[in-house]
């Protein structure tokens, strides 16, 4: 479990996050949603330690993340996997080398053991026969899957995904979402997904955190979204008149 307490973050005079307190649960797909500029990415960067909060505390289980020494921080980070919006695969390395990179850096496995582990992870994300390809030779969806394979290769306890669906067609996006969900449940890890993909929210949001102008606007399960009377949530999720009509129809169907 990850808990953040009263987090503030400012860049100069610009206060991006204003006192956010929330929890992200183990074995669940925790989603942070919100409009562009609402502070989702900043929050994720604070949680993984790429930025430091102006004020507040971040707990991984009972450990205060912000009080860790450099050595302890690196040890904790080995338990973290992250999928970047851009996948962040190393261009000059093949898919196999990309996935194997954390193993090369942090384990003393033999080449054969590493290869087995890499192949297992690639199979887990439904990728085969791509070991020798470079990131530029595979599609965006495949790059995301390689990113996931690299993120899980060290068997992390925490998985972070920054907009995993951006730039993907709806079908591929769904596949990536299902993959993230399956891995989360299978390995019982704490997963936090930054997204503004409404399909993803309505299908997989176990614990949804809505940010609005840097503040926590709503929190709940996907089953509570339709019936919620939170205006910010409704304006965000059902942004278009078409989706609003769908929502009303769905509510009527539920009542009927």
């Amino acid at each position, binding site marked *: 479990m990850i808990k953040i307490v009263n987090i503030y973050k400012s860049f100069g005079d610009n206060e991006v996050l204003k006192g956010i307190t929330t929890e992200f649960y183990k074995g669940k797909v925790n989603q942070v949603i919100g409009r562009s500029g609402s502070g989702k990415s900043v929050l994720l960067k604070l949680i993984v330690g790429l930025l430091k909060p102006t004020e507040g505390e971040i707990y991984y289980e009972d450990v205060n993340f912000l009080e860790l020494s450099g050595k302890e921080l690196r040890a904790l980070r080995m338990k*973290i996997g992250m999928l970047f919006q851009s996948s*962040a695969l190393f261009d000059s390395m093949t898919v196999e080398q990309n996935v194997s990179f954390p193993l090369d*850096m942090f384990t003393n496995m033999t080449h054969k053991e590493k290869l087995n582990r890499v192949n297992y992870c690639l199979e887990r994300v439904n990728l085969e026969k791509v070991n020798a390809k470079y990131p530029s030779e595979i599609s965006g969806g495949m790059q995301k899957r390689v990113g996931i394979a690299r993120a899980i290769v060290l068997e992390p306890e925490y998985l972070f995904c920054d907009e995993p669906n951006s730039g993907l067609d709806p079908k591929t996006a769904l596949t990536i979402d299902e993959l993230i969900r399956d891995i989360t449940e299978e390995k019982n890890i704490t997963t936090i997904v930054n997204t503004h993909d409404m399909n993803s929210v309505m299908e997989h949001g176990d614990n949804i955190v809505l940010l609005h102008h840097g503040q926590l606007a709503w929190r709940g399960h996907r089953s509570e979204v339709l019936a919620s009377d939170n205006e910010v949530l409704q304006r965000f999720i059902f942004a278009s008149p078409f989706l609003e009509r769908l929502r009303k129809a769905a509510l009527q169907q539920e009542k009927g």
Partner: protein
Amino acid sequence: MDFNILYHFGRYLMMINDAFSRPEKVRMYYKEMMRQMNDIGVGSLTIVALISVFIGAVTAIQFAYQLDSTLVPMYYIGYIVRDSTIIELAPTITCLVLAGKVGSNIASEIGGMRQKEHIDAMEIMGINTAAYLITPKVLAALVVIPLLVAIAAFVSVTGGYLAVVPSGFLSATDYIQGARSFFEPYNVTIMFVKSVVFAFLLTTVSAYQGYYVTGGSVELGKASTNAVVFSDILILLFDYVIALALT
């Protein structure tokens, strides 16, 4: 770029401190260092040799012209080419050229990794990115650049020979006699001290420019330019300091 010398100097020192902390896995750093030695050393050999041969040739021709009809013996041309090359031209010109070639390459490579979130990805994996990305480059440069400078010195003296002997300014015997006269081994020490200091400066300054790059392609271009400009300025400044200190 906001130009606050103390801010940049402090951040540069912090980066160096991180870069030279204990590596996660020595074997990975060794592999990367070998790759960098190949890129910096073998990759720069042609340009360094080309420039050196012309520097030697021009120096020899210019001095042959200057010494013509004077009482100074003509074999001094070999001596002058050798010493000016060893003390000044080989280390300084080679490193100025390498600041352009290697420095801009280091800044764009690391800056590109910063922009594509590769550095963030490594940080999250728990890798000390300053150490992994910068140390192998610096160590490779510290080994390879002095070797390049030594080759540059040899090629330059040979260039002087090729310029003045076949053209008839000087006989081969005179040039070789000059090149072997008044040899002071301490000058070679100065050459290596300069090349080590310049190698450190050009790699770390360029890495600094790339490591902290923000923004997009325009900023990356600026970082690459700054890497060359600041490396060149510091090389010239330290050339002066070393000359004061060691001669």
